[in-house]
């Protein structure tokens, strides 16, 4: 082993919130945590990874029957099934990502107490698991697009769609990290989170288009929800409809804001984690 002269100093104040160099140093561990969670999740299930798309697919079928066929919800010129499915797969990144990263500190408490690594790795790896599920369901999503003959403009699709996912990811990491840090101090968050996420589903344009909201104030208030922008942008990627960049901008800014707040809260609580977890 080379005589590395990498000196270190430990004192009461020696931690930084988002030490990218350190996260890079521990990138393999980040990968292993995500890999473990994916493996364990689908191991011993009869259908394995297919579960990742069965859930949103069935949800889409049900939504399509009730809201598409029976209630004739507006759907931004897309077949309602495609419209709902787009909303769902983006929404699922957020909902499963936030729940998992929120729980990640507590489920891995034993490891936290006995080993050192940048704690932020745990919520991050939980979000990677959600991203993996998304990629799996994206395969089915492509099939659905072909089935309904929705052929998006390639350039438009490959700029808008990744941007939408990026907004969703930034929001998910930010929120997940807040919940993760807070649930160490207050276990209440663990209980209340699934319920809150269910409520959030209704104020996010997943089953209805944000364009259906005629009250202008409410329209902008709803776009404060970063997921509203992410989902609207993902849908816009499939159509030739004009995009309301104002709400995308509002949503994206909120996503960044939540992310920064998340990192600050996490930093403040990081040192408590091994003592309280």
């Amino acid at each position, binding site marked *: 082993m080379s005589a590395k002269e990498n000196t270190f*100093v*430990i004192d009461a104040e020696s931690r930084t919130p988002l030490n990218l160099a350190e996260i890079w140093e521990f990138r393999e*561990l980040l990968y*292993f945590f995500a890999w*473990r969670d994916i*493996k364990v999740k689908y191991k011993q299930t009869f259908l394995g990874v297919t579960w990742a798309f069965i859930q949103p697919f069935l949800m889409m079928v049900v939504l399509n029957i009730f809201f598409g066929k029976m209630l004739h919800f507006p759907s931004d010129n897309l077949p309602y099934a495609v419209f709902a499915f787009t909303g769902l797969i983006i929404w699922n990144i957020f909902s499963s990502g936030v729940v998992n990263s929120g729980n990640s500190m507590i489920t891995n408490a034993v*490891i936290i107490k*006995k080993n050192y690594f940048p704690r932020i790795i745990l919520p991050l790896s939980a979000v990677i698991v959600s991203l993996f599920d998304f990629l799996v369901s994206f395969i089915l999503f492509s099939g659905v697009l072909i089935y309904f003959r929705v052929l998006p403009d390639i350039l438009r699709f490959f700029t808008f769609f990744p941007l939408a996912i990026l907004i969703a990811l930034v929001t998910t990491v930010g929120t997940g990290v807040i919940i993760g840090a807070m649930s160490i101090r207050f*276990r209440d968050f663990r209980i209340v989170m699934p319920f809150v996420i269910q409520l959030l589903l209704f104020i996010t344009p997943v089953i209805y288009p944000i364009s259906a909201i005629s009250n202008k104030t409410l329209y902008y208030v709803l776009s404060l929800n970063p997921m509203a922008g992410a989902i609207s942008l993902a849908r816009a990627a499939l159509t030739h409809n004009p995009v309301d960049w104002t709400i995308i901008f509002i949503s994206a800014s909120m996503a960044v804001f939540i992310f920064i707040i998340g990192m600050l809260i996490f930093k403040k609580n990081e040192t408590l984690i091994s003592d*309280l977890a």
Partner: protein
Amino acid sequence: MKTILEVEHISKKYSLSGINKAYQTLSGSMADFFRTGKTEKRDFHALSDVSFSVKEGDTLGIIGRNGAGKTTLLKIISRITSPTSGRITGKGKVTSLLEVGTGFHLELTGRENIYMNGSILGLKKKEIDKKFEEIVEFSGVEEFIDNPLKFYSSGMQLRLAFSIGAHLEPEILAIDEVLAVGDSLFQQKCIEKMTSIVKSGRTILFVSHNFQALKMICNKAIVLEGGRKVFDGSATDAIDYYNNEQRLQGQTINLLELPRGKYAGELIFSKLNFHSVSFQNGEDISFSLFLKTVNNTVNKTNLILGANVVDRFGNNIYHVSNILTNQPFTHSADSDEYRFIIKNNLRPGQYRLTICLTINDVVQDFFTELIDFTIEEGNPYGFSKTAFIQGMVFPEFTIRKI
């Protein structure tokens, strides 16, 4: 020689209101908020002003009773928790092995767990690839390496876990008590492995109650007591110092203050008096119990007192009780002393005591694994390597050729 680790005035304070509850709830902290001024926050000093330095290639033993701050010290050095004040400077990579098999997942195979656990311990995937064969061979679970861990016996899991730990090669390695795992043959194998790590010039910090292993592995040692460093010197001197201190100090535990389970509670334990928490090999284990009457109407005849001596893995080694000898007691006053004297042929190590009180088959009070006590190194046979003796107890025996 170069100093590789410099620990300067390290203190760690826990505020007890946070620890006691283990975690807070929103309503709890809101209630605290409205009670401002009255909230008592007692501080607990896990470490106070501890300083020492470790030179390159030194192996430092850390000795002390349970709760003396040994693990906290290792946790601070390996950055798992932050110090409240003080400063540590060091050179190189610190890896801590505070527990073997952290992050083991029963659904994953042995192979997958090696990668997962190795990675948690700070190994790179490439390093694990390189050492994989060696780890598997050392653990002796080759045949099952691609089976899920849930099909392993607990002994196999432990061996696999330790093998990963034994193949770490950081500049500074902090080890907590993990040698106490497995059967004694495997323990011996581990001690040999550790000794070879030491010879390769790595710096090791080693917390253990296994003084024989400590003597073999460490050249220096510090003794901690109540969070303070009370001795710093050669490993042999430190062990002598510690043993002398231990013998001098008895220990009285006020049981009224401890949280207890839901039992009848009409007559409860009030005090446990240990004359010493460290016993020589073969020395009688003696302690006294005192009771307190909570409900005066309780029938105080037919008292049964029981005590179990439990080893580190939770095995009940001894169970003693006056029901076994059919001599129920009658409790006349709370000043009555119930003295236990247990002949001992335990192997050296750490043990815990469980105590129980019943009246007419109703459990009145019960404490599990209440106090740690030590059986010191040595054996009744005069054999030089106690660690080679595999039994859980050391019985008297004769073997004769007839």
